[in-house]
């Protein structure tokens, strides 16, 4: 245990020190993107690992980005207030949609399709209110005057962004770990196995699911807002809609849903893959990255449903002692 903690501290120290040693702006840019998307993917996996597959997270991310940017541009509200407000908006929307879903026991396919409608709505609303949001052409937050960068949460310096993204990513992992160790995790696992049995055992099914959904939606909105502040340009296609939702699902599944660092591994793989293809093929690469993603997604679901990191960890742990997750997988398999 102590060795694990020491390992984490060393790894963290290396990550914090990195931008001061290695100053290549392109590499830092990639790292910031990887960290922000890792955080978004981690938020999705908080729900996804319990079988609550949501395609609505594109919507939450879009709300986080657009509410923050709109408040800043039209009302001059600092992102320091705008981001929490956007998170609250996403959270309220999540509760409005999720409460009846869980109350009336909409699960499986139906839950996926209801959340799909949600991200469809957010995308269409952003496109339809083009007088305010710029529609499908995208939207840019106003530049702050020099010296007010902190107030406007706009930094030209990549190192600052790297450290912010690193801190947020770390918080995401801590939340993941906190849920992993809480009673909620056991409750949610029971629910994902058998809702009736869980309810009979005294689990408040609706409340437990709502808690997880709310945490996940709040985090996703924060990721959207950070993405907007960092990139200083958002468009409905890059931060909202069904394509973004599917992108989250894809990255998490490739990395591994059941392990803390799985979504991060997924983000590293997908972003590096896209960049390598972009550099290797130039403009001809348009489409190729998604073609490879799609193929990988299908192959992973068929042959490696626990993801790269999940499978690697299992492979390391398997012979001496079965990990908890693995045991449960075996039980599930045996039941089938």
């Amino acid at each position, binding site marked *: 245990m102590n060795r694990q903690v020491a390992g984490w501290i060393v790894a963290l120290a290396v990550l914090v020190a990195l931008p001061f040693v290695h100053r290549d702006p392109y590499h830092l840019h990639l790292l910031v993107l990887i960290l922000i998307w890792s955080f978004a993917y981690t938020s999705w996996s908080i729900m996804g690992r319990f079988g609550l*597959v949501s395609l609505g997270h594109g919507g939450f991310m879009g709300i986080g980005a657009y509410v923050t940017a709109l408040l800043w541009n039209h009302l001059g509200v600092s992102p320091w207030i705008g981001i929490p407000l956007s998170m609250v908006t996403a959270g309220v929307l999540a509760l409005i949609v999720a409460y*009846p879903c869980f109350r009336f026991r909409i699960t499986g*396919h139906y839950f996926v399709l209801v959340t799909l409608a949600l991200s469809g709505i957010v995308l269409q609303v952003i496109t339809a209110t083009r007088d305010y949001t710029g529609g499908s052409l995208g939207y840019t937050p106003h530049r702050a005057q020099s010296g007010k960068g902190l107030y406007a949460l706009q930094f030209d310096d990549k190192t600052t962004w790297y450290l912010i993204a690193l801190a947020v990513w770390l918080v995401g992992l801590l939340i993941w770990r906190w849920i992993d160790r809480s009673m909620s995790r056991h409750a949610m696992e029971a629910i994902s196995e058998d809702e009736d049995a869980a309810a009979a055992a005294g689990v408040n099914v609706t409340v437990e699911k709502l808690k997880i959904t709310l945490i996940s939606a709040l985090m996703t909105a924060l990721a959207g807002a950070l993405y907007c502040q960092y990139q200083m340009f958002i468009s409905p296609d890059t931060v909202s809609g069904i394509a973004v939702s599917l992108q989250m699902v894809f990255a998490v599944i490739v990395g591994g849903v059941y392990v803390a660092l799985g979504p991060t591994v997924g983000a590293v793989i997908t972003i590096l893959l896209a960049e390598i293809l972009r550099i290797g093929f130039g403009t001809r690469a348009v*489409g190729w990255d998604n073609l490879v993603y799609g193929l990988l997604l299908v192959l992973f679901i068929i042959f490696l449903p626990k993801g790269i990191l999940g499978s690697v960890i299992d492979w390391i742990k398997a012979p001496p002692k079965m990990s908890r997750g693995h045991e449960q997988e075996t039980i599930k398999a045996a039941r089938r």
Partner: protein
Amino acid sequence: MQSFLDIFDIYLLEAVINGILLGGVLALLALGLNLIFGVIDVTWICYAELVMIGMYGMYYLVQYYHLPYWAAAPLVILLVALLGAALHYLVIAPLLTAPPINQLLATGGVLFILQSFATVAFGIDFRNLGIRLPVLAIGDMNFSYARLLSFAAALIGMIGIYFFMTRTYTGTAIRAIAQDRQIMPLMGVDAKRIYLITSAIGGGLAGLAACLLVLQYDVHPFVGLSFGPITFLICVLGGLGNFIGGFIAAFVFAQIISLGGLFSDLEWGYVLAFAFFIVMMFIRPAGLLARRS
């Protein structure tokens, strides 16, 4: 006739009728998806992308190989039917015993593949057949022949499927499998073969829809996203696997989009339709026609 038209707002009537015409094509799309869900218990998230491939097929056959429309259509239907069968054979069949969510996500991967395949192979330009059908004017109302033709062809396609399902041995076997997946193989029905045939029929319906939609809309790699989500929502609203429910839901949705678009932008029509869907999910979670338990 004129006095009758005076009573109603002319634009309202036009929107209602256009909504009905749109409903026909949506119902056709929903039928294919419902068939696959009802029989194989799988949701093809990539269904609209099959339609997109079919639309490209029509475009190339008509524009490059100069086939007449009526000769290209059967070829495209066959092509998409084969694509549907291949999708089942390569992706769904290995996952039949996996959790349903995995099947859904795997077809999500196929969505990415087909979309980016179209981007790579055909480019991102908007293309159209170059066939412009005339517009029919009744009083002050205008209806395009393309829509009327689509509506008629969609109805004929659906009636054809109805007779196939009720009058042939294979059709009966398909309905039997949909009712009881476990028992029918014991009764001598080859489930694997039925699944493959059903997937081909579902693909064929997507192909037919492609032939009709290409008359009205330009084709580009992301065209699937403009009617794909609507199709899923229609199927869920009607009750997944419930053919009649899907049929009714298609017309309800088409009216909402058409009337919403009349009073404001088309996007608001879609927003209204999506919101209506979410509300309906809470009122009738198992579909429009489901009995309350």
